[in-house]
């Protein structure tokens, strides 16, 4: 790693702030779970939980794994595996009727 590469990385205080954001998002997720139990939010609950999980996922990859500061080659390798897995298993789930597209 070069010096300028390190210079772009967040500092400890920023890492702590990111952790607070991650913890807050997790608390919101758990809150949604209980809200759904009493209000039955249906697909809105599913969509919100998936969006919150995706946010946490991207924050950890981008800031803690430093992917947003790395060369694009790494993002492409990593993203390829993710997109391949997502596509492959979405097809399997649709094929077996777990994800119903016409519902």
């Amino acid at each position, binding site marked *: 790693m070069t010096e300028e590469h390190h210079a772009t990385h967040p500092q400890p205080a920023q890492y702590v702030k990111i952790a607070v954001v991650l913890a807050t998002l997790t608390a919101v997720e*758990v809150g949604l779970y209980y809200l759904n139990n009493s209000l039955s939010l249906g697909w809105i609950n599913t969509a919100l939980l998936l969006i919150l999980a995706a946010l946490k996922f991207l924050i950890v990859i981008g800031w803690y794994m430093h992917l947003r500061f790395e060369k694009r080659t790494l993002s492409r390798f990593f993203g390829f595996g993710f997109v391949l*897995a997502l596509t492959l*298993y979405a097809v399997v789930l649709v094929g077996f009727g777990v994800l119903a597209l016409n519902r």
Partner: protein
Amino acid sequence: MSESTAPPEDEEVAHHDEHESTGVENRKLGMWVFLSSEFLFFGALITNYLLYFGREFEQGPTPSEIYDIPFTSVSSFVLLMSSLTMVLAHNALTRRDQGATRTWLLATAMLGSVFLAGQVFEFTEFIVEYDMTLSTNPAASSFYVLTGFHGTHVAIGVIMLLSLFGLSKRLGGLSERQHLNLELVGLYWHFVDIIWIVIFTVVYLLTATSGG
């Protein structure tokens, strides 16, 4: 914590030799490719769980009927915070603060161990209290295989963290080459965390919601 020792410099040249035409160290590129392939591994296990979710079986409860969401939420929080301590360990080594590096490495290993202890407790409760074993029904099997493999990954991560801690303690600090080792272990650890983010939402919160 503020102990700062100069790391051995004998391997600095070897570290820079690892740069290839991609501009990325070979081992680092290898780790990212490995982690990328792990998406397929865990994707298969999560898909397997979802295929059996919602089906009725003659024997025993299904996992979604007996989840302890408050307990798992705390476990998730612990693993999430271990990512913070991991990145602080990496940051401390970048600043060549070897004492702080060791402290954060140990903190990460301990948080990982707490998560593992929670998983052992959860499994024990499911088996003893609810009589849901690996062979009770396909939903239970897929749950144990998925979370068991994730737990195995966490355990391997804890071993690697403790190895780095021991190495740093023995040598009085991590060298330039070992800096990359710590970065690779960090990548692995954060990956285990993001996989749990997916498992916690898709396997626990979403299926418990639907099941309940």
